[in-house]
Structures are given as C-alpha cells and as structure tokens.
C-alpha cells in the first residue's frame, strides 16, 4: 500500500504489469505494452522472457528502449531473428504465452479494431492497421488488452475487425480453430475487465481506487456485465511507482 497519489495511466500500467504474473514468454509491441512488460519483469514476473516484435529475444538494453526497433535492444541480446523466424517459429510456432494488445475500438467479446474509423474505403480516420496484431491475437496463448476506457473505444459494434477476440462469444473462438485462447483481461485507466463467463463476454472485475460503477458504465457502449466478485484494484505500491517514474518512463512519455 501507498499514500502517494498516482495518475489513472500509472494505475493502468501497473495493473497491466500485474496481469503478467506467471507468464513465461511475452510478445512485446511498441508503447504502453513495452512499459508494462518491463515493469512486470521488475516486479511480478522476474523470469519473464521478452520477445520483441522487431525480432529480439533476451534483450538486455543499456538504456530504456524508446521503441521496439531501438538498437539498444540488439546489443547484448541473446538472439536476434528475422521476421520470418519471429512470426513463423516464435509466434506461430506456439512459443508465446502472452501478448499485450490495444486498439481504437473493442467490442463486448474482445474483438479489436486498429484499422479505421468509419467506412474502410472512405474512412473518417485512418488508423495504423494490423501490424502483427492480427496473428498475435490468433497465435499467442493468452491476451491482455491495455487501453483507456471511453465510450468512443468500448463500442457495441466495431467499424472494422482487425484482430479477433472471442468473435461472437461462447464457443465461437474455439470452433474457429485458433491456436490461442484469446483475451482474458482488459486493463484500463478506470477499471479492469475479464471474460470469466460462458459467453466470454467482457465483464467488470475490478474498479480502480475512487472510481464508481456509474463512471464505468458511462464509458462502455453496451449494457455492461459485472462480475459477481467485483473487487477494488490495489493501488500502485511505492516500488511500482518508483520503477515507473524513475526508470521505465522517466520523461512521463506514457503516464
């Protein structure tokens, strides 16, 4: 416990890091996931093996990497591999336990949109697209999402389905034959969600300190399901905040 104040984003990163407890290998993308993975490595998952989307395994960077393509990730790493090897041998080969993803839109079954807002051919906003997210969502054993909670993002229907979550829910994903199990947690700046019900429907599992159920419902674009074991997220410990502020994100680039 701690009495220091912290930002919602700090809480989100800390909660995401905690969701990595017990993971052996994690597939690391750019941005917030990168920070969360490195925080987990320093706290709940000391044996966590980071595999960067740029093709680096066993990185030991001399500085906090600014991106997945940072040359500091290569120098001193255990192995550097090509894109065919990274996606073919590591990801599709089934070596990735867990991956963190985010998106501009997510629906109640955890499907993600990172492609477009509006119509694909005449977009209102053109987003980055899949990158590796599509095959990561399909092949990684389990997924954690990290994204800010807002009605604009938590929508009843996606404008475009870039990466599959639990598809239409229930047994749909299993029936599709995807190797991975799909998302098990959605970590936001206000609350944490899971999919622990037969429908694999996103449900509120924990509220961050000071956040009300009403606030959360306000930001979710569908009739929100609430876990029977709704809890309050333990606030960031001093150790977690210190690592985040002094080492992992000193310039508060993310928090």
């Amino acid at each position, binding site marked *: 416990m701690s009495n220091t104040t912290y930002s919602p984003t700090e809480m989100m990163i800390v909660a995401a890091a905690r969701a990595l407890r017990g993971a052996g290998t994690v597939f690391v993308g750019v941005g917030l996931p990168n920070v969360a993975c490195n925080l987990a490595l320093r706290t709940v998952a000391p044996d966590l093996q980071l595999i960067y989307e740029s093709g680096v395994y066993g990185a030991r960077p001399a500085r906090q990497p*600014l991106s997945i393509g940072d040359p500091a990730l290569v120098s001193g790493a255990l192995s550097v591999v090509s894109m065919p090897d990274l996606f073919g041998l590591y990801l599709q080969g089934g070596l990735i336990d867990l991956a963190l993803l985010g998106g501009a839109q997510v629906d109640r079954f955890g499907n993600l949109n990172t*492609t477009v807002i509006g119509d694909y051919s005449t977009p209102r906003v053109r*987003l980055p*697209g899949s990158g590796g997210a599509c*095959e990561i969502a399909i092949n990684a054993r389990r997924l954690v999402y990290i994204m800010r909670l807002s009605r604009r993002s938590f929508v009843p229907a996606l404008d475009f389905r870039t990466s599959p979550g639990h598809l239409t829910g229930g047994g749909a994903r299993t029936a599709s034959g995807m*190797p991975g199990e799909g998302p098990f947690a959605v970590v936001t700046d206000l609350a944490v969600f899971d999919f622990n019900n037969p429908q694999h429907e996103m449900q509120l599992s924990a509220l961050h300190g000071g956040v009300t159920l009403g606030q959360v419902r306000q930001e979710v674009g569908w009739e929100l399901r609430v876990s029977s074991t709704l809890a309050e997220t333990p606030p960031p410990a001093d150790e977690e905040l210190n690592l985040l502020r002094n080492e992992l994100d000193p310039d508060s680039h993310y928090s």
Partner: protein
Amino acid sequence: MSDKRVSMREAISTYVRSGQTLALEGFTASIPFSAAHEIIRQGHTGLTLARMTPDLVYDQMVAAGLARKLVFSYLGNPGVGPLHAIRRSIEQGKPAPLELEEYSHYGMVGRYMAGAYRLPFFPLRSYTGTDLPAVNPLIRNVQSPYGGGAVAVVPPLNPDVAIVQAQRADAEGNTQMWGLLGAQKEVAFAAERVIVVVEEIVAEAVIRADPNRTIIPGLIVDAVVHEPFGSHPSYVQGYYDRDNAFYLEWDEISRDEGRTAEWLREWVLEVPDRAAYLRKLGPERLERLRPGPAPSPPVEYGDYRA
C-alpha cells in the same frame, strides 16, 4: 567478379522507372532514406510502394506525389503517432488519392517469402475471424489435404526493384548485415532487381572470412551504393543511432501540407545528394548518433588443407 559499385543517382536512374513496384524494406532499422530521397529527386511517379511499415520513408514519397498505391501492414510513426501525409492522401486525396493493399505483418512477410521461394502462395495462421480478407481479396484460404481445416494464404510479391540498407558489402554485392534483419533477405530474393546501400565497402576477403554473415549474395545484386549514414534518420546497427528527434520533428512538419512540401524542397529536392544532406545536418548532429564500441568476438572457421 564484377564491380557493381555505382552512385545512388546512377543506381536509381538505371533501375527505377515510373509505374514500377518498389520495396524499400528494413523493419524499424536500416531504412534506405537516401534511396527514397534520390527517387523523389528523379521524380519517378505512379509507383506501387511495398513495405511492412511505410514509416517516414514512404510518408515522404507519398507527400511528394510519387505513389499510386501502397502495399503494407502497419501505418505509423513508431512511438510517435500517425503518418500525416499518408493519412491526408487516404482521407482527403491530397496531393493525390492512394490505393491501399493491406495485410498484417506476417502476411507481408509471407508475400515476400512466396515471391522469393517462387511459390504460388505462402500459408500462414492468420486472418481468421477478421475483416481483412473482405477488403483484400488476395488474402485467401486453402484446405489442408491432411484434414484439420483451412489455412490462410497470400500470393507472391515480386517487386521490380528491392532496395535494402546494410552495414557492408564487397564490390560485387556480397552483403553482410547484423542487428534487426526484418525481411531484407526475403525481399531481395523476391525482387527482379536489387540495389544494396551500404555504410562500408569492404574487400572480398572480409566477406570470405565470415561467410555465415553474408545475408544477400552478390549473385542477386545489381547495384552496390556506398552511402555512409544512408539510413538517417533511421539507423544502422553499430554505425549510428536512430535520430528520434527527427521522427518527432516530422510529426510536426507533416501535419501541414505546406510545411511538408517546404521540407521536401529544402531537404530533398534542392539537395544534390546524401553527402550534401549530411553537410546540411551538420557533423555535430551526426556525431551525437555514434554509439560506443561493442565488437563481436571472433569465431573459428578453421584453415583446412591437405
């Protein structure tokens, strides 16, 4: 052994033509900006540009109005934000509309692999339950003849010209690279023509002293361009760092169409070549990008006689 060393100007004017499909690859590293700038200067138009991550290199080429179509998997300024010029082209058709052929990363890799392996398709476990096949009819399925259902496939991509940046090559184009390898080898073997841009030209003996390090054989290389700092603002492992400051500057510049055109005029069109571009950047900025030493230890190949 033939000497394939030429200037960037000659390499581009010899092999690049308007209307071609080009692939300037390099995943988050070794992006051949020097080649892109020369293509912009020579004004080849109607290009189909293939790249996993269009990055700033294609944002600049699109802003220059050279591109007809983009074949890609991730549109972004890594760690910074969107690619404003490409977004303008897609959302507002400025300076010209842009046709999109969109994949995931592994889909792009698969296209290069099918092209390099001369296969009619490459299979991968992706796209299940997504909308990508609906907007890209080239993403298809094949039933496994061993049961177990279907697998996604993508068709070969054989660019007219592939341009890759590496640390070093000999005069014949035997190219050695290390650090992030991206899909450099695959795109080079898939392409009709290959231009290699290197930080250093080394003696053939240096290549022969470590043959496992040779990623692209001279056999498939058409031109070798010696261009120090050829990837700036991207980086080349062991030679210089990524100029992250410029990636941030570009986010500002590229938001405005006028400022973007102005930047292209000042830094590309009115600059004769990379050497001049580097002088304009100034030695201080380049020196700050130099890493400290971290050489690899030697390995023993053995001298086998009699």
